[in-house]
């Protein structure tokens, strides 16, 4: 099979353009509701250990655990049934570095905030921290997921990976 260098160059440009376009159109790298669900579980656990009477504990833990299991199953289903899951070779490693940094930062921030609220004498510091972190994660997770997708799409645009 013989083709001219111009045809080869055009084919390569088309390959790159196709990959860049579909990665831009792909859904966010992860469903942003999922970390919110995890923080809701964590906050629920703080609520039942800090505020509610003791007899609530096992009922609430069972209900929260069922909720978490449902969230995990839906997360797996959403990922598996996504319109497009970027191939690992296409994903920008810095996107995962950013994701890990966000995960560690939100985890540490939650712990530090709980201690700080306790020092300030805030009532129910762990539960208040949980609610605060739900808001923080609900705002930042969609931005993070979109940023990761944008980095991956930009990487597909560059000639050499």
């Amino acid at each position, binding site marked *: *099979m013989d*083709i001219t*260098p*111009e045809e*080869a*160059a*055009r*084919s*390569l*440009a*088309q*390959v*790159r*353009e*196709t*990959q860049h*376009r*579909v*990665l831009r*159109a*792909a859904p966010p790298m992860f469903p942003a509701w999922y970390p919110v669900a995890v923080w809701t579980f964590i906050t629920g656990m703080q609520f039942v250990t800090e505020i509610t009477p003791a007899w609530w504990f096992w009922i609430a833990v069972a209900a929260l655990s069922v909720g978490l299991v449902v969230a995990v199953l839906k997360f797996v289903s959403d990922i598996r*049934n*996504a*319109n*497009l*899951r*970027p*191939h*690992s070779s*296409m994903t920008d490693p810095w996107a995962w570095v950013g994701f890990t940094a966000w995960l560690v930062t939100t985890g540490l921030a939650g712990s530090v905030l709980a201690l700080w609220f306790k020092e300030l004498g805030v009532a129910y510091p762990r539960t208040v921290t949980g609610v605060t972190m739900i808001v923080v994660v609900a705002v930042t997770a969609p931005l993070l997921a979109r940023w990761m997708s944008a980095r991956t799409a930009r990487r*597909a645009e560059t*000639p050499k990976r």
Partner: protein
Amino acid sequence: MTSRLDPAIHAPTRLQIVSLLAAAEEAEFAFVRDNLGISDSVLSKHASALEAAGYVRIRKGYVGKRPRTWFSLTREGRAAYTGHVAALQAIVARSGLSVLPD
């Protein structure tokens, strides 16, 4: 590594489908169709041919009650794509051209 042009993926539409799938673990039928601007029948025909060549895996499932189809490249398909792109790059490199914008 010996890179060669693969006639099974050389046609423009086939190359577009395979390059889209090379960027994905899996891609859904309607997503592929809409992003490549091709019809259902054209996509079905090429996907079946690529599946017959052993390059594409087809998974059928449901989202809610709606049937869906997902495509992914097999290991052979990914190797064929990599070899095809390497062969194209070699042709371009020998000529001293750079990749054209369109």
